């Protein structure tokens, strides 16, 4: 997700479109990315964190969180 202090023009555009479509009461929209990785048991959480921090996200402008879900 873009960090709170980073401008998110895409999220703003979505927020501005919602009232036009008749959806009221949404005060803010932030747009981010979601990746689904299928991994085997040899991949530990530390490796996933490293993938997120060094490649999938740009920590200069984005916050990230890794969530492991059993299939």
């Amino acid at each position, binding site marked *: 997700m873009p960090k709170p*202090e980073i*401008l998110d*023009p895409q999220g703003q555009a979505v927020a501005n479109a919602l009232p036009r479509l008749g959806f009221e009461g949404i005060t803010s929209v932030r747009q981010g990315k979601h990746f689904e990785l299928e991994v085997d048991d040899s991949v530990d959480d530390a490796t996933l964190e490293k993938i997120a921090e060094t490649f999938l996200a*740009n920590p200069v402008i984005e916050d990230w969180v890794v969530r492991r879900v059993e299939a």
Partner: protein
Amino acid sequence: MSVRVGVITFPGTLDDVDAARAARYAEAEAVPLWHGDPDLKGVDAVIVPGGFSYGDYLRCGAIARFAPVMDSVIEAAGKGMPVLGICNGFQILCEAGLLPGALIRNSGLHFVCKDQWLKVENNTTAWSSRYELGAEILVPLKSGEGGYQATQSTVDELEGEGRVVFRYVGDNPNGSRDGIAGVTSANGRVVGLMPHPEHAIDALTGPTDDGLGMFLSLMDEVVNA
């Protein structure tokens, strides 16, 4: 002596031909460098040109920074080699950590393509010494993700240390923090900017020849080194 300027081509690079032409206009020898080859071929400087490397997948520049040639560029920059990133090249240098900050979608969401006035705010870098401080130059700007963003502390540091090299004149075209169009590394050897000086080296093919000064600056830097 002949000054050798490397110009990198990634899959999706568009402006390598014009960057090489700009180097030749400055009477340098333009040396093609390939993304998959870590060999810098003994060049004196490197230009990372514009385009859409790897289709801008993931984030602009995010995949290009891991190309074999970039390991060599990062190592050479660490030893003081002048490096210039233009547009997508600027995005790549930010992703590679050679320059601070990041580029995001234009605040107006539309791709911007126009001739843009810039103010020269630092004429002590390897790529801007030919300009007078405060000079205004007209070069093309063509990008969809040209909004320069960084944390407030980083922006304060850049402003405090005079590391903003170019700033947009007039209306901010893309929502960049403080109207920042280009920045430099702490040692003034690595410069990145969103506008395209390589498209403005000859009045026949560009709005002006204002951009040529960047490549002539490099010649001074290398010859006098």
